């Protein structure tokens, strides 16, 4: 019996970021799912139950915080660990995200894909 592939959902409006992290996660044998907006991200999270969600804050026509709230409030997604993954380095936003239930807040430019994979591995128990 083959081990289940861990699923990572990335909610991100920047295609280049998604492409980069998608490639890295796939190389590390993860199932990578990408949603370009919060609405489809929440839907996918409910349907596919990813092990970890990587969520951007500035999304097309949406506020990532709102998406985080929705993920936390929905019974199907409330236990999925959400890492806020943004380039917005503002204390109030970081505090708010953690208060809303994000497991971590990571500044994209301060890490490389390998570090995110490590973080996701620790959270998903891979």
């Amino acid at each position: 019996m083959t081990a289940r592939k861990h699923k990572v959902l990335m909610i991100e409006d920047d295609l280049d970021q998604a492409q980069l992290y998608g490639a890295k996660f796939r190389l590390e044998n993860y199932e990578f799912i990408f949603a370009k907006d919060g609405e489809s991200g929440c839907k996918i999270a409910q349907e596919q139950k990813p092990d970890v969600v990587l969520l951007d804050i500035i999304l097309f026509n949406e506020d990532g915080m709102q998406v985080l709230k929705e993920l936390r409030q929905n019974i199907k997604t409330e236990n999925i660990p959400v890492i806020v993954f943004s380039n917005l380095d503002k204390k109030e936003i970081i505090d708010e995200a953690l208060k809303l239930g994000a497991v971590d807040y990571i500044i994209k430019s301060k890490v490389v894909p390998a570090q995110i994979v490590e973080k996701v591995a620790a959270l998903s128990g891979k």
Partner: protein
Amino acid sequence: MSKTKKQTGEKEVGKSCYLNRNCWLVNNINSLPYKRCQYCELKFHKCLFLQYQVISMVLICFSFLLFYVVDRSISVSAIIIIFTLVIVYGYFFNNSTEKIIKSNFFEKKTKESLKALSDKLEDRVKEQTRDIQKKADRMMKLLEMRSEFLDIASHQLRTPTSVIKGTLAMLKDGDLDKMKPIEKAKFIDGMYQKSIKLEEIINDILMASEMDTAGDKVMKLGDKFDLTELVDEIIIQHVLDAKNKKLKLVWDKPDKLMMMRGSLRYIEEAINNLLDNAIKYTNKGSVLVALTRKKRRALLTLQDTGIGIPIEDQDKVFKKFIRASNARSAYTDGSGLGLFIVKEIIDKHPGAKIWMESVENKGTKFCVEFNLLAESKQSK
């Protein structure tokens, strides 16, 4: 009668003569009996002239009555004596009050001068307090704007940086080598595109700073160029961008020369920025660019069918660090400096002006007017 109401009396404080222009004497016989009027001012509502008149009348009547009782008739000499008495009484009445009038008048005048000075000082203090408050508010606003700018700028600089850094890290770790060559090339190209974006953002920040500090000095307005040709070149540079977004880019090109004088580099930057925005913020439909000439003026219009600018943001879009609320969510890569730079460039060209009309979710039209040179009349 001298009616001395503070509110109505026209007073000349600090002058040699302190006049109450409500005084009966001043108004009716055009005389300037300043002592009496000063007295009126002091006593408030008690006019010395009236008192003098009343007392004189009483004195005359009493004297006539006395003479009549004593002599049973009034002779001419009695009349002369009575009037002489009245005049002498008037003289002493006047002199006896002079000292009091003078001292009280000056005291009052000093008080009034002090009051006026105090009021003036109070007004100045209030005015300066308002001024300081205004400056403090402005400073707070600038600090907020600076903080917002730093947030935007750092976010925008980090976005391409994180992709470049991430791709390089994967290249370093050998991850890219595990990919198909075509996929690897795509990553390298993505990194290259992000480096261009990074450069654009840095340029925007530098140019905005340049506009702020030495825009007049760095912008040489002596270049003579054909506006039609310049717009034509800019359009060509954007054809591919419009095509990639499946937008119709229409260029209503005039067949006449539009020679103008200005800074070619900066005008190109401004028009380029406007067209870039039009394409960036239009998801479907078209971008129409037109250039028309009216006498010695050229009108360039860029009309798109994009997201538009919300009415509450329309008067702020040309300000620094400001991005329309819908632009922030529609396109995350903007620096919030583009339209500020455009307006600064246009405003620094004599006779040129820029304005816009926009309806949210319908589109935006930017209009720019330039002064043309005489040789613009020639046909191309």
